[in-house]
């Protein structure tokens, strides 16, 4: 039963107020992309046992989508941050590295 802080309204939200939305920072491939790129975009999800960037919506709340960096093995949450960004911000990377020195972004 996770709790995540919504970066938009500042509420520490219960999991039941949220909706999970899968892997974050996917790059959309549309018309003109190769079959391989498109397959990767739709189906090849990161499935790490460890640090994972993911999307959540504060559905029973302010309605905003946000991102979380979370460990799928311990469920530790390193940071939550707004969705309008194409890759994890440097301070989020730093927060993860502080807790998981062996981890590095791809």
């Amino acid at each position, binding site marked *: 039963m996770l709790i995540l802080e919504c970066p*938009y*309204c*500042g509420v520490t939200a219960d999991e*039941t107020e949220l909706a999970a939305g899968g892997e974050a920072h996917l790059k959309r491939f549309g018309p003109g992309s190769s079959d391989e790129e498109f397959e990767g975009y739709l189906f090849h999800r990161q499935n790490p046992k460890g640090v994972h960037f993911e999307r959540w919506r504060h559905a*029973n709340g*302010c*309605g905003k989508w946000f991102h979380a960096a979370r460990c799928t093995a311990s469920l530790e949450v390193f940071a939550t941050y707004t969705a309008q960004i194409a890759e994890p911000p440097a301070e989020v990377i730093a927060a993860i590295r502080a807790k998981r020195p062996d981890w590095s972004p791809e």
Partner: protein
Amino acid sequence: MSKASALMGARSDGATMVEEMGLRGMITVKGDLSDIDLKNAVTGTSGLDFPAQRQISTVEERALAWMAPDELLLLCPHDEADQMVATISRHLAGQFATVINVSDARAMFRVSGPDAREVLAKLAPVDLHPDSFGPGEMRRTRLAQVAAAIWQSDDDEFLVVCFRSVAQYVFDILSLSAQDGSDVGYF
């Protein structure tokens, strides 16, 4: 033309009472909340203070609530809503802002009595301890299985807004939770 709220003022018995409050004007305002024109349009039209994050400012039947970083909810008497929409829209003409009357899409309840806070704490996964949740703050959350917004309006009184279609459900679960003999004695 007679207009009907979802439950036409239904109320429950008991020391802690649940009542549907009838029709209330409600206006969704979306836009850049840091924009001075928008602030002026909304506060000027309503006569209410501009709310900070998660806050609600109230004067009698009017209230202005922060709903999201780009969204406000303005409450007013039901028959004033259309006029307010028109006035605010006129102020914001040409701007990227959306002002919509959603009065009839909602139902509003009053939960009052000594255990009002507990009644809500049976249904919402929210820290409602008086140290954590007091007057002036509005919390959007869920009540059991539906979305709702709740705020404290008086010492032993809380207000609840939900979608109109689930008004009966919300009334039923609030009344159940408020039944005499089910006080928790926690807060």
